[in-house]
């Protein structure tokens, strides 16, 4: 048996199909994965993401610690509440994890890291925090719900006090703050507007049921995966890991080489790679033939070489298969993918595939 979030019994009552996800028993779907996907694109859905790991970092030197620990620049966090997406790298530039860090106060930052990497992340963070006198506290007392979709913010706000609702609806994109005793952030992993809410575990079942009563659909990790892939967002362990670096993972935009004086872990290795030029890149693929792209399928780039699909699925919005793939730098617009022994044609595109309910790439009839 795996670990359980505070919402586990509710998922069972709701008839969810539960699967192992990084050591946790998590709902993969309630009724229909595609139905849940569309609910988020067209209206609103709620996900249990309590398996993710919330870490509070406190101390007078938290900021210099983060400047050392993460590849993006915490200097971008000037206003309280601002959030920053970043990778945490090892010395060779490999990705230990991707994360979001929130600037709560000058001596208090909050980090959210992946569930499957919890133990190694915490060990790594603690190892480096000591020198900065920073305390590292895992907030296992908090549950986390993601409420996503064009109607998500308005529906969720109905469950807050009038002042709380006003404050929540005033949050800018990629900002979070404490409202009515909950930490509410305008972030997500779906390509839609919405909130991620960190709240005491005891409040979480009630919040879920109240959201359902307002018509917010219960959504599983299956829909979360198709939504994030349509949104062109990477999944740790699939699209990047410790053997790959951000510059070949579509994450160059998250690496801050300026200011040059900031000596973050992995910087030297990445500078070498940048100087020589990355040999591979992560691209989006749209399958032009019928079939479904899956991770680990081989990508053939005529006249150039080979690559591999890192994440692939069927896009419910485009009604076509899409993927992220790591391919040679010289890859042009056309590739082929070995799908169960057949070579199918795919077009190289720039993610996202879908954003805020709308296709971002043109799909021709098959």
């Amino acid at each position, binding site marked *: 048996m795996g670990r359980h979030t505070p919402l586990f019994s509710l998922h069972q009552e709701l008839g969810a199909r539960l699967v192992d996800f990084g050591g946790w028993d998590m709902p993969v779907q309630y009724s*229909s*994965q595609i139905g849940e996907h569309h609910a988020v694109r067209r209206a609103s859905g709620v996900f249990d993401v309590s398996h993710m790991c919330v870490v509070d970092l406190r101390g007078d030197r938290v900021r210099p610690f983060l400047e050392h620990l993460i590849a993006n620049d915490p200097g971008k966090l000037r206003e309280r509440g601002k959030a920053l997406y970043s990778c945490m790298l090892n010395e060779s530039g490999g990705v230990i994890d991707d994360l979001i860090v929130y600037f709560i106060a000058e001596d208090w930052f909050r980090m959210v890291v992946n569930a499957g990497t919890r133990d190694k992340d915490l060990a790594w963070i603690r190892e480096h925090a000591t020198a900065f006198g920073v305390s590292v506290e895992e907030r296992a007392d908090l549950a986390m719900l993601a409420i996503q979709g064009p109607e998500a913010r308005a529906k969720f706000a109905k469950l807050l006090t009038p002042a709380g609702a006003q404050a929540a609806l005033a949050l800018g994109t990629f900002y979070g703050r404490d409202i009515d005793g909950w930490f509410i952030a305008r972030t997500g992993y779906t390509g839609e507007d919405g909130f991620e809410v960190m709240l005491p575990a005891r409040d979480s079942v009630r919040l879920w049921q109240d959201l359902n009563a307002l018509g917010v659909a219960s959504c599983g990790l299956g829909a979360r995966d198709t939504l994030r892939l349509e949104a062109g967002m990477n999944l740790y362990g699939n699209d990047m890991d410790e053997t790959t670096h951000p510059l070949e993972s579509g994450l160059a935009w998250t690496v801050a080489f300026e200011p040059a004086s900031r000596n973050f872990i992995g910087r030297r290795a990445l500078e070498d790679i940048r100087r020589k030029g990355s040999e591979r890149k992560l691209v989006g693929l749209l399958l032009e033939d019928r*079939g*479904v792209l*899956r991770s680990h399928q081989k990508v053939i780039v005529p006249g150039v070489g080979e690559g591999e699909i890192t994440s692939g699925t*069927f896009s*419910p919005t485009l009604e076509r298969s899409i993927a992220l793939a790591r391919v040679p730098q010289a890859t042009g617009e056309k590739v082929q993918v070995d799908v*169960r022994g057949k070579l199918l044609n795919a077009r190289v595109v720039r993610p996202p595939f879908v954003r805020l309910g709308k296709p971002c790439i043109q799909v021709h009839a098959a």
Partner: protein
Amino acid sequence: MSKVPADLKYTRTHEWVRTLSDGLVEVGITDHAQHALGDLVFVEVPEPGRQVAPGEPVAVVESVKAASDVYSPLAGEVTERNEQLATAPELINQDPFGAGWMMRIKPANPAVLAELMGAPEYEALLQAEGG
């Protein structure tokens, strides 16, 4: 609880077989199988004229989550395939024993049909598998 129509034959790999009046058999995947796979998004069925052997992978069903082989329940020749599945794979989810049929086969030896599982036996198998 999955539906298991009493008038069909079944395989251990969750295909169903219906004997038609003209001696052909119709093949599809069971309600249990479609439920386990989830929303189907792509189905590949064999060309008519293809000779198939029992246990041979002859079709592919892909859901959002995964791809799965469909095995021929018996030896014979494929005479027809359900062309509608190319554009409407969800027919298998909606009506696995009816509109979601996959192919028709002319059995090489109709006597082998008697060796396939009946409904009570298939139900017992599902129970043993925890489904």
